[in-house]
Protein backbone atom coordinates (compact mmCIF):
# COMPACT_ATOMS: atom_id res chain seq x y z
CA UNK A 1 0.00 0.00 0.00
CA UNK A 2 1.51 3.31 -1.08
CA UNK A 3 1.36 6.65 0.64
CA UNK A 4 -1.75 7.94 -1.25
CA UNK A 5 -3.75 4.82 -0.41
CA UNK A 6 -2.53 5.00 3.20
CA UNK A 7 -3.54 8.66 3.51
CA UNK A 8 -6.91 7.99 1.88
CA UNK A 9 -7.68 5.27 4.45
CA UNK A 10 -6.06 6.88 7.51
CA UNK A 11 -7.42 10.38 6.91
CA UNK A 12 -10.80 9.72 5.28
CA UNK A 13 -13.49 12.00 6.67
CA UNK A 14 -15.10 8.99 8.38
CA UNK A 15 -11.78 8.09 10.05
CA UNK A 16 -11.10 11.71 11.04
CA UNK A 17 -14.50 11.86 12.68
CA UNK A 18 -13.78 8.64 14.54
CA UNK A 19 -10.42 9.95 15.88
CA UNK A 20 -12.15 13.19 16.85
CA UNK A 21 -14.85 11.35 18.80
CA UNK A 22 -12.37 8.97 20.48
CA UNK A 23 -10.10 11.84 21.50
CA UNK A 24 -12.78 14.31 22.64
CA UNK A 25 -14.87 11.75 24.55
CA UNK A 26 -11.67 10.42 26.16
CA UNK A 27 -10.72 13.99 27.13
CA UNK A 28 -14.10 14.61 28.81
CA UNK A 29 -14.03 11.22 30.54
CA UNK A 30 -10.47 11.75 31.79
CA UNK A 31 -11.37 15.24 33.04
CA UNK A 32 -14.34 13.88 35.01
CA UNK A 33 -12.04 11.22 36.43
CA UNK A 34 -9.41 13.82 37.32
CA UNK A 35 -11.97 15.70 39.46
CA UNK A 36 -13.69 12.74 41.11
CA UNK A 37 -10.49 10.66 41.25
CA UNK A 38 -8.73 13.37 43.27
CA UNK A 39 -11.68 13.58 45.69
CA UNK A 40 -11.79 9.78 45.98
CA UNK A 41 -8.04 9.54 46.68
CA UNK A 42 -8.38 12.30 49.30
CA UNK A 43 -11.28 10.57 51.06
CA UNK A 44 -9.52 7.18 50.99
CA UNK A 45 -6.21 8.49 52.39
CA UNK A 46 -7.37 11.14 54.85
CA UNK A 47 -10.62 9.87 56.36
CA UNK A 48 -11.55 6.77 58.34
CA UNK A 49 -15.21 5.85 58.03
CA UNK A 50 -17.37 2.72 57.87
CA UNK A 51 -17.28 1.17 54.41
CA UNK A 52 -13.90 2.64 53.52
CA UNK A 53 -12.40 -0.80 52.76
CA UNK A 54 -15.33 -1.62 50.46
CA UNK A 55 -14.97 1.73 48.67
CA UNK A 56 -11.24 1.09 48.28
CA UNK A 57 -11.84 -2.36 46.74
CA UNK A 58 -14.63 -1.07 44.47
CA UNK A 59 -12.38 1.56 42.87
CA UNK A 60 -10.56 -1.26 41.04
CA UNK A 61 -13.77 -2.74 39.63
CA UNK A 62 -13.18 -1.32 36.11
CA UNK A 63 -9.84 -3.23 36.06
CA UNK A 64 -11.42 -6.48 37.21
CA UNK A 65 -14.69 -6.34 35.28
CA UNK A 66 -14.50 -7.48 31.63
CA UNK A 67 -15.15 -4.50 29.37
CA UNK A 68 -17.92 -6.27 27.46
CA UNK A 69 -19.79 -6.80 30.73
CA UNK A 70 -19.40 -3.12 31.58
CA UNK A 71 -20.62 -2.30 28.06
CA UNK A 72 -23.86 -4.31 28.16
CA UNK A 73 -24.57 -3.21 31.71
CA UNK A 74 -24.11 0.51 30.95
CA UNK A 75 -26.16 0.19 27.76
CA UNK A 76 -28.94 -1.44 29.79
CA UNK A 77 -28.80 1.21 32.53
CA UNK A 78 -28.64 4.27 30.32
CA UNK A 79 -30.88 3.06 27.47
CA UNK A 80 -34.36 4.57 27.13
CA UNK A 81 -35.90 1.75 29.22
CA UNK A 82 -33.04 1.44 31.74
CA UNK A 83 -33.03 2.51 35.39
CA UNK A 84 -31.23 5.78 34.65
CA UNK A 85 -32.09 6.30 30.98
CA UNK A 86 -35.77 5.70 31.80
CA UNK A 87 -35.70 8.47 34.41
CA UNK A 88 -34.04 10.95 32.09
CA UNK A 89 -35.96 10.11 28.89
CA UNK A 90 -39.17 11.98 29.92
CA UNK A 91 -36.98 15.08 30.45
CA UNK A 92 -35.77 14.82 26.88
CA UNK A 93 -32.25 13.76 27.91
CA UNK A 94 -30.78 10.87 25.91
CA UNK A 95 -27.89 9.08 27.63
CA UNK A 96 -27.24 6.14 25.29
CA UNK A 97 -26.69 5.63 21.57
CA UNK A 98 -25.16 9.12 21.31
CA UNK A 99 -21.95 10.92 22.36
CA UNK A 100 -23.09 11.06 26.01
CA UNK A 101 -23.09 7.25 26.09
CA UNK A 102 -19.50 7.15 24.78
CA UNK A 103 -18.38 9.56 27.53
CA UNK A 104 -20.16 7.49 30.23
CA UNK A 105 -18.40 4.29 29.09
CA UNK A 106 -14.98 5.98 28.88
CA UNK A 107 -15.44 7.54 32.33
CA UNK A 108 -16.17 4.07 33.70
CA UNK A 109 -13.03 2.42 32.28
CA UNK A 110 -10.74 5.29 33.31
CA UNK A 111 -12.01 5.65 36.86
CA UNK A 112 -9.21 3.86 38.80
CA UNK A 113 -6.26 5.62 37.14
CA UNK A 114 -6.31 9.04 38.84
CA UNK A 115 -7.24 7.52 42.23
CA UNK A 116 -4.41 4.98 42.12
CA UNK A 117 -1.71 7.40 40.94
CA UNK A 118 -2.61 10.23 43.36
CA UNK A 119 -3.25 7.97 46.37
CA UNK A 120 0.35 6.83 47.12
CA UNK A 121 1.74 10.37 46.69
CA UNK A 122 -0.92 11.79 49.01
CA UNK A 123 -0.21 9.06 51.57
CA UNK A 124 3.56 9.72 51.52
CA UNK A 125 3.17 13.49 51.72
CA UNK A 126 4.99 14.68 54.84
CA UNK A 127 2.54 15.89 57.46
CA UNK A 128 4.94 18.49 58.84
CA UNK A 129 4.63 20.84 55.83
CA UNK A 130 0.89 21.01 56.49
CA UNK A 131 1.54 21.69 60.14
CA UNK A 132 4.07 24.36 59.23
CA UNK A 133 1.54 26.08 56.95
CA UNK A 134 -1.13 25.90 59.63
CA UNK A 135 1.16 27.18 62.38
CA UNK A 136 2.17 30.09 60.14
CA UNK A 137 -1.47 31.14 60.09
CA UNK A 138 -2.81 29.58 56.87
CA UNK A 139 -6.42 28.49 57.06
CA UNK A 140 -7.34 24.97 55.91
CA UNK A 141 -8.33 26.03 52.39
CA UNK A 142 -5.04 27.92 51.89
CA UNK A 143 -3.06 24.92 53.17
CA UNK A 144 -4.83 22.55 50.78
CA UNK A 145 -4.64 24.87 47.77
CA UNK A 146 -1.09 26.21 48.25
CA UNK A 147 0.75 23.33 49.98
CA UNK A 148 -0.95 19.99 49.33
CA UNK A 149 -2.38 20.32 45.81
CA UNK A 150 0.86 21.57 44.16
CA UNK A 151 2.66 18.46 45.47
CA UNK A 152 -0.01 16.26 43.88
CA UNK A 153 0.07 17.90 40.44
CA UNK A 154 2.59 15.54 38.72
CA UNK A 155 0.75 12.41 39.92
CA UNK A 156 -2.55 14.03 39.05
CA UNK A 157 -1.43 14.77 35.46
CA UNK A 158 0.01 11.25 35.15
CA UNK A 159 -3.29 9.72 36.27
CA UNK A 160 -5.19 11.95 33.87
CA UNK A 161 -2.90 10.95 30.97
CA UNK A 162 -3.20 7.23 31.79
CA UNK A 163 -7.00 7.45 31.96
CA UNK A 164 -7.01 9.39 28.69
CA UNK A 165 -4.69 6.91 26.93
CA UNK A 166 -6.78 3.96 28.10
CA UNK A 167 -9.99 5.65 26.96
CA UNK A 168 -8.68 6.48 23.46
CA UNK A 169 -8.04 2.79 22.71
CA UNK A 170 -11.10 1.45 24.53
CA UNK A 171 -13.45 -0.77 22.55
CA UNK A 172 -15.51 -3.31 24.52
CA UNK A 173 -17.33 -1.04 26.91
CA UNK A 174 -18.13 1.59 24.26
CA UNK A 175 -19.59 -0.32 21.33
CA UNK A 176 -22.75 -1.41 23.17
CA UNK A 177 -23.76 2.03 24.40
CA UNK A 178 -22.48 4.15 21.48
CA UNK A 179 -25.00 3.25 18.77
CA UNK A 180 -22.07 3.12 16.30
CA UNK A 181 -23.44 5.51 13.67
CA UNK A 182 -20.80 6.43 11.05
CA UNK A 183 -19.83 10.13 11.24
CA UNK A 184 -21.65 10.39 14.58
CA UNK A 185 -20.91 7.81 17.29
CA UNK A 186 -18.32 5.58 15.65
CA UNK A 187 -15.06 5.32 17.66
CA UNK A 188 -11.68 4.69 16.02
CA UNK A 189 -11.08 1.12 17.32
CA UNK A 190 -14.53 0.14 16.00
CA UNK A 191 -13.63 1.46 12.56
CA UNK A 192 -10.60 -0.89 12.56
CA UNK A 193 -12.83 -3.90 13.23
CA UNK A 194 -15.28 -2.78 10.53
CA UNK A 195 -12.46 -2.61 7.95
CA UNK A 196 -11.26 -6.04 9.11
CA UNK A 197 -14.71 -7.58 8.69
CA UNK A 198 -14.58 -6.42 5.07
CA UNK A 199 -11.08 -7.97 4.83
CA UNK A 200 -9.66 -4.54 4.02
CA UNK A 201 -6.44 -5.18 5.96
CA UNK A 202 -4.70 -2.16 4.41
CA UNK A 203 -7.26 0.37 5.64
CA UNK A 204 -7.45 -1.33 9.04
CA UNK A 205 -3.65 -1.13 9.38
CA UNK A 206 -3.61 2.53 8.28
CA UNK A 207 -6.10 3.51 11.00
CA UNK A 208 -4.25 1.32 13.50
CA UNK A 209 -1.00 3.13 12.62
CA UNK A 210 -2.58 6.47 13.50
CA UNK A 211 -3.88 4.96 16.77
CA UNK A 212 -0.39 3.63 17.56
CA UNK A 213 1.13 7.06 16.95
CA UNK A 214 -1.45 8.61 19.31
CA UNK A 215 -0.66 5.95 21.94
CA UNK A 216 3.07 6.55 21.49
CA UNK A 217 2.61 10.32 21.91
CA UNK A 218 0.65 9.67 25.12
CA UNK A 219 3.41 7.41 26.42
CA UNK A 220 6.02 10.09 25.72
CA UNK A 221 3.84 12.66 27.50
CA UNK A 222 3.51 10.45 30.59
CA UNK A 223 7.26 9.80 30.66
CA UNK A 224 7.91 13.52 30.18
CA UNK A 225 5.64 14.40 33.11
CA UNK A 226 7.41 11.77 35.25
CA UNK A 227 10.84 13.15 34.37
CA UNK A 228 9.66 16.70 35.08
CA UNK A 229 8.14 15.60 38.41
CA UNK A 230 11.40 13.84 39.31
CA UNK A 231 13.36 17.07 38.68
CA UNK A 232 10.87 19.20 40.63
CA UNK A 233 10.86 16.90 43.65
CA UNK A 234 14.66 16.80 43.91
Amino acid sequence: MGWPAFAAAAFSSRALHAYGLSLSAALIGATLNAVFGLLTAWVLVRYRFPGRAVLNALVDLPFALPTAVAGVSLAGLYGATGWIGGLLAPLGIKTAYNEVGVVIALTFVGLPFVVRTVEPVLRDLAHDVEEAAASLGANRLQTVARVILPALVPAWITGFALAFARAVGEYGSVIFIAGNMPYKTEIAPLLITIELEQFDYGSASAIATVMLLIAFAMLLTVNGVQAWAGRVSQ
Partner: protein
Amino acid sequence: MSGARRGTTDDPLWARFGLIAIVTAFVGFMLVLPLVAVFAQALAKGVQGSLAALADPDALSAIRLTLVTAAIAVPVNTLIGVCAAWAIAKHDFPAKSVLISLIDLPFSVSPVVAGLAYVLVFGLQGWFGRWLDAHRIKIVFAAPGIVLATVFVTFPFVARELIPLMQAQGRDEEEAAVSLGADGLTTFLRVTAPNIRWGLLYGVLLCNARAMGEFGAVSVVSGHVRGLTDTMPLQVEILYNDYDMVGAFSVAALLCLLAVATLVLKTALERLQPQLSDPIALQKTRLRA
Protein backbone atom coordinates in the same frame (compact mmCIF):
# COMPACT_ATOMS: atom_id res chain seq x y z
CA MET B 1 -1.64 22.83 71.98
CA SER B 2 -2.75 19.75 70.14
CA GLY B 3 -6.28 21.14 70.12
CA ALA B 4 -5.25 24.28 68.25
CA ARG B 5 -3.18 22.29 65.75
CA ARG B 6 -5.95 19.81 65.10
CA GLY B 7 -8.25 22.68 64.23
CA THR B 8 -6.08 23.65 61.29
CA THR B 9 -4.60 20.45 59.84
CA ASP B 10 -7.86 18.50 59.95
CA ASP B 11 -10.63 19.20 57.51
CA PRO B 12 -13.80 20.71 59.01
CA LEU B 13 -16.56 18.23 59.75
CA TRP B 14 -18.86 19.52 57.02
CA ALA B 15 -16.09 19.05 54.42
CA ARG B 16 -15.45 15.52 55.64
CA PHE B 17 -19.08 14.47 55.42
CA GLY B 18 -19.59 16.37 52.18
CA LEU B 19 -16.60 14.77 50.44
CA ILE B 20 -17.40 11.26 51.70
CA ALA B 21 -20.99 11.73 50.48
CA ILE B 22 -19.89 12.95 47.03
CA VAL B 23 -17.39 10.13 46.56
CA THR B 24 -19.78 7.46 47.81
CA ALA B 25 -22.48 8.75 45.47
CA PHE B 26 -20.07 8.83 42.50
CA VAL B 27 -18.77 5.31 43.13
CA GLY B 28 -22.27 4.01 43.84
CA PHE B 29 -23.62 5.55 40.67
CA MET B 30 -20.71 4.68 38.36
CA LEU B 31 -19.63 1.29 39.75
CA VAL B 32 -22.16 -0.34 42.08
CA LEU B 33 -25.23 0.39 39.97
CA PRO B 34 -23.83 -1.29 36.79
CA LEU B 35 -22.83 -4.32 38.88
CA VAL B 36 -26.30 -4.61 40.42
CA ALA B 37 -27.94 -4.07 37.02
CA VAL B 38 -26.14 -7.12 35.57
CA PHE B 39 -27.52 -9.43 38.28
CA ALA B 40 -30.99 -7.87 38.09
CA GLN B 41 -31.18 -8.49 34.33
CA ALA B 42 -29.69 -11.99 34.63
CA LEU B 43 -32.32 -12.95 37.20
CA ALA B 44 -35.21 -11.31 35.30
CA LYS B 45 -36.69 -14.77 34.68
CA GLY B 46 -35.58 -16.18 38.02
CA VAL B 47 -32.62 -18.32 38.97
CA GLN B 48 -33.96 -21.17 36.85
CA GLY B 49 -34.05 -19.03 33.70
CA SER B 50 -30.51 -17.86 34.32
CA LEU B 51 -29.18 -21.37 34.95
CA ALA B 52 -30.97 -22.65 31.86
CA ALA B 53 -29.26 -19.91 29.81
CA LEU B 54 -25.87 -21.00 31.17
CA ALA B 55 -26.59 -24.65 30.35
CA ASP B 56 -26.95 -23.78 26.65
CA PRO B 57 -24.33 -25.71 24.63
CA ASP B 58 -22.87 -22.50 23.09
CA ALA B 59 -22.61 -20.89 26.54
CA LEU B 60 -20.92 -24.00 27.94
CA SER B 61 -18.45 -24.09 25.07
CA ALA B 62 -17.69 -20.38 25.62
CA ILE B 63 -17.06 -21.05 29.32
CA ARG B 64 -14.80 -23.98 28.39
CA LEU B 65 -12.79 -21.92 25.87
CA THR B 66 -12.36 -19.08 28.39
CA LEU B 67 -11.10 -21.52 31.04
CA VAL B 68 -8.71 -23.21 28.58
CA THR B 69 -7.40 -19.84 27.35
CA ALA B 70 -6.73 -18.63 30.90
CA ALA B 71 -5.22 -22.03 31.81
CA ILE B 72 -2.61 -21.54 29.06
CA ALA B 73 -2.10 -17.75 29.11
CA VAL B 74 -1.74 -17.33 32.87
CA PRO B 75 0.98 -19.99 33.46
CA VAL B 76 2.90 -18.81 30.36
CA ASN B 77 2.87 -15.19 31.52
CA THR B 78 3.64 -16.19 35.08
CA LEU B 79 6.74 -18.11 33.99
CA ILE B 80 7.98 -15.43 31.59
CA GLY B 81 7.00 -12.66 34.00
CA VAL B 82 9.03 -14.19 36.84
CA CYS B 83 12.03 -14.68 34.53
CA ALA B 84 11.81 -11.10 33.23
CA ALA B 85 11.41 -9.60 36.71
CA TRP B 86 14.29 -11.72 38.06
CA ALA B 87 16.54 -10.63 35.19
CA ILE B 88 15.60 -6.95 35.49
CA ALA B 89 15.57 -6.57 39.27
CA LYS B 90 18.51 -8.76 40.24
CA HIS B 91 20.92 -8.36 37.30
CA ASP B 92 22.43 -5.64 35.14
CA PHE B 93 22.65 -5.96 31.38
CA PRO B 94 22.73 -3.69 28.34
CA ALA B 95 19.44 -2.35 26.92
CA LYS B 96 17.61 -3.14 30.17
CA SER B 97 15.42 -0.05 29.78
CA VAL B 98 14.37 -1.23 26.31
CA LEU B 99 13.21 -4.53 27.80
CA ILE B 100 11.25 -2.70 30.50
CA SER B 101 9.54 -0.53 27.88
CA LEU B 102 8.68 -3.61 25.82
CA ILE B 103 7.07 -5.28 28.84
CA ASP B 104 4.83 -2.23 29.18
CA LEU B 105 3.87 -2.21 25.50
CA PRO B 106 0.60 -4.19 25.80
CA PHE B 107 -0.72 -1.64 28.32
CA SER B 108 -0.27 1.25 25.90
CA VAL B 109 -1.60 -0.40 22.73
CA SER B 110 -5.34 -0.56 22.05
CA PRO B 111 -6.46 -4.21 22.35
CA VAL B 112 -8.05 -3.96 18.91
CA VAL B 113 -4.69 -2.93 17.42
CA ALA B 114 -3.03 -5.86 19.25
CA GLY B 115 -5.54 -8.27 17.74
CA LEU B 116 -5.01 -6.74 14.31
CA ALA B 117 -1.25 -7.29 14.64
CA TYR B 118 -1.83 -11.05 15.08
CA VAL B 119 -4.17 -11.12 12.08
CA LEU B 120 -1.49 -9.37 10.00
CA VAL B 121 1.18 -11.87 11.04
CA PHE B 122 -0.75 -15.17 11.17
CA GLY B 123 -3.82 -14.43 9.01
CA LEU B 124 -4.31 -15.89 5.55
CA GLN B 125 -2.99 -12.68 3.92
CA GLY B 126 -0.37 -12.28 6.63
CA TRP B 127 3.38 -12.93 6.74
CA PHE B 128 3.12 -16.61 7.70
CA GLY B 129 -0.37 -17.06 6.21
CA ARG B 130 0.64 -19.07 3.12
CA TRP B 131 2.97 -21.36 5.04
CA LEU B 132 0.46 -21.98 7.83
CA ASP B 133 -2.31 -22.64 5.32
CA ALA B 134 -0.12 -25.07 3.37
CA HIS B 135 0.52 -26.99 6.57
CA ARG B 136 -3.16 -26.80 7.56
CA ILE B 137 -2.39 -24.91 10.76
CA LYS B 138 -5.12 -22.50 11.76
CA ILE B 139 -4.17 -19.76 14.19
CA VAL B 140 -6.30 -16.73 13.39
CA PHE B 141 -10.09 -17.28 13.62
CA ALA B 142 -9.35 -20.31 15.80
CA ALA B 143 -8.48 -21.07 19.43
CA PRO B 144 -4.68 -20.64 19.06
CA GLY B 145 -5.17 -17.03 17.93
CA ILE B 146 -7.37 -16.35 20.95
CA VAL B 147 -4.71 -17.77 23.26
CA LEU B 148 -1.93 -15.74 21.55
CA ALA B 149 -3.90 -12.49 21.74
CA THR B 150 -4.70 -13.16 25.40
CA VAL B 151 -1.05 -13.87 26.19
CA PHE B 152 -0.15 -10.54 24.58
CA VAL B 153 -2.63 -8.34 26.46
CA THR B 154 -2.03 -10.02 29.85
CA PHE B 155 1.76 -10.16 29.57
CA PRO B 156 2.68 -7.15 31.77
CA PHE B 157 0.73 -8.06 34.93
CA VAL B 158 3.08 -10.54 36.63
CA ALA B 159 6.34 -8.90 35.53
CA ARG B 160 5.18 -5.41 36.46
CA GLU B 161 4.00 -6.52 39.86
CA LEU B 162 7.28 -8.29 40.65
CA ILE B 163 9.89 -5.85 39.30
CA PRO B 164 9.35 -3.09 41.91
CA LEU B 165 8.88 -5.66 44.67
CA MET B 166 12.16 -7.41 43.80
CA GLN B 167 13.97 -4.10 43.37
CA ALA B 168 12.78 -2.91 46.78
CA GLN B 169 14.00 -6.12 48.38
CA GLY B 170 17.48 -5.60 46.93
CA ARG B 171 20.12 -8.19 46.11
CA ASP B 172 21.73 -8.69 49.52
CA GLU B 173 19.98 -11.93 50.39
CA GLU B 174 20.73 -13.46 46.98
CA GLU B 175 24.37 -12.39 47.15
CA ALA B 176 24.65 -13.94 50.60
CA ALA B 177 23.16 -17.21 49.28
CA VAL B 178 25.52 -17.30 46.31
CA SER B 179 28.56 -16.50 48.47
CA LEU B 180 27.59 -19.42 50.70
CA GLY B 181 27.72 -21.70 47.67
CA ALA B 182 24.10 -21.86 46.47
CA ASP B 183 23.57 -22.19 42.71
CA GLY B 184 21.17 -19.96 40.75
CA LEU B 185 18.14 -22.23 40.95
CA THR B 186 18.56 -22.91 44.67
CA THR B 187 18.98 -19.18 45.31
CA PHE B 188 15.78 -18.47 43.45
CA LEU B 189 13.72 -21.22 45.03
CA ARG B 190 14.96 -20.84 48.62
CA VAL B 191 15.62 -17.09 48.84
CA THR B 192 13.81 -15.07 46.18
CA ALA B 193 10.60 -17.08 45.77
CA PRO B 194 9.53 -16.98 49.45
CA ASN B 195 10.04 -13.20 49.46
CA ILE B 196 7.86 -12.58 46.43
CA ARG B 197 5.11 -15.16 46.88
CA TRP B 198 2.28 -12.74 47.74
CA GLY B 199 3.29 -10.33 45.01
CA LEU B 200 3.40 -13.22 42.56
CA LEU B 201 -0.07 -14.35 43.59
CA TYR B 202 -1.30 -10.76 43.21
CA GLY B 203 0.09 -10.49 39.68
CA VAL B 204 -1.35 -13.89 38.74
CA LEU B 205 -4.75 -12.82 40.09
CA LEU B 206 -4.86 -9.64 37.99
CA CYS B 207 -3.47 -11.50 34.96
CA ASN B 208 -6.20 -14.12 35.27
CA ALA B 209 -8.99 -11.55 35.60
CA ARG B 210 -7.86 -9.86 32.41
CA ALA B 211 -7.26 -13.17 30.59
CA MET B 212 -10.83 -14.32 31.26
CA GLY B 213 -12.33 -10.93 30.47
CA GLU B 214 -10.39 -9.71 27.44
CA PHE B 215 -12.70 -8.61 24.67
CA GLY B 216 -11.18 -6.27 22.06
CA ALA B 217 -8.08 -8.27 21.06
CA VAL B 218 -9.89 -11.60 21.23
CA SER B 219 -12.83 -10.24 19.25
CA VAL B 220 -10.55 -9.36 16.32
CA VAL B 221 -8.81 -12.76 16.11
CA SER B 222 -11.77 -14.98 17.00
CA GLY B 223 -13.79 -14.85 13.78
CA HIS B 224 -16.91 -15.49 15.91
CA VAL B 225 -17.57 -19.12 15.04
CA ARG B 226 -20.41 -19.98 17.39
CA GLY B 227 -19.75 -22.82 19.77
CA LEU B 228 -16.12 -22.97 18.60
CA THR B 229 -14.21 -19.70 18.89
CA ASP B 230 -16.36 -17.69 21.28
CA THR B 231 -15.10 -16.87 24.74
CA MET B 232 -17.43 -15.76 27.52
CA PRO B 233 -17.13 -12.00 26.79
CA LEU B 234 -17.73 -12.66 23.07
CA GLN B 235 -20.73 -14.82 23.97
CA VAL B 236 -22.12 -11.86 25.95
CA GLU B 237 -21.89 -9.73 22.81
CA ILE B 238 -23.54 -12.33 20.58
CA LEU B 239 -26.46 -12.97 22.93
CA TYR B 240 -26.91 -9.24 23.53
CA ASN B 241 -27.06 -8.56 19.79
CA ASP B 242 -29.62 -11.40 19.50
CA TYR B 243 -31.75 -9.57 22.11
CA ASP B 244 -31.37 -12.61 24.40
CA MET B 245 -31.05 -10.42 27.50
CA VAL B 246 -31.36 -13.16 30.11
CA GLY B 247 -28.71 -15.18 28.27
CA ALA B 248 -26.32 -12.25 27.78
CA PHE B 249 -26.63 -11.04 31.35
CA SER B 250 -26.38 -14.56 32.82
CA VAL B 251 -22.96 -15.03 31.20
CA ALA B 252 -22.13 -11.44 32.20
CA ALA B 253 -23.16 -12.18 35.79
CA LEU B 254 -20.75 -15.13 35.87
CA LEU B 255 -17.96 -12.75 34.77
CA CYS B 256 -19.12 -10.27 37.44
CA LEU B 257 -18.73 -12.96 40.10
CA LEU B 258 -15.18 -13.50 38.82
CA ALA B 259 -14.50 -9.76 39.08
CA VAL B 260 -15.88 -9.54 42.62
CA ALA B 261 -13.89 -12.60 43.70
CA THR B 262 -10.78 -10.98 42.18
CA LEU B 263 -11.37 -7.78 44.17
CA VAL B 264 -11.93 -9.68 47.44
CA LEU B 265 -8.74 -11.76 47.01
CA LYS B 266 -6.82 -8.68 45.95
CA THR B 267 -7.86 -6.82 49.12
CA ALA B 268 -6.87 -9.85 51.22
CA LEU B 269 -3.43 -9.99 49.57
CA GLU B 270 -2.91 -6.26 50.11
CA ARG B 271 -3.49 -6.84 53.84
CA LEU B 272 -0.91 -9.66 53.85
CA GLN B 273 1.75 -7.61 52.09
CA PRO B 274 1.03 -3.87 52.32
CA GLN B 275 3.61 -2.76 49.74
CA LEU B 276 1.64 -4.43 46.93
CA SER B 277 -0.15 -2.00 44.71
CA ASP B 278 -1.89 -1.74 41.41
CA PRO B 279 0.08 -1.98 38.17
CA ILE B 280 -0.65 1.66 37.37
CA ALA B 281 0.59 2.90 40.70
CA LEU B 282 3.73 0.87 40.04
CA GLN B 283 4.41 2.71 36.81
CA LYS B 284 5.73 5.52 38.97
CA THR B 285 8.07 3.23 40.85
CA ARG B 286 9.29 1.67 37.66
CA LEU B 287 10.07 4.97 35.98
CA ARG B 288 11.96 6.16 39.01
CA ALA B 289 13.97 2.95 39.25
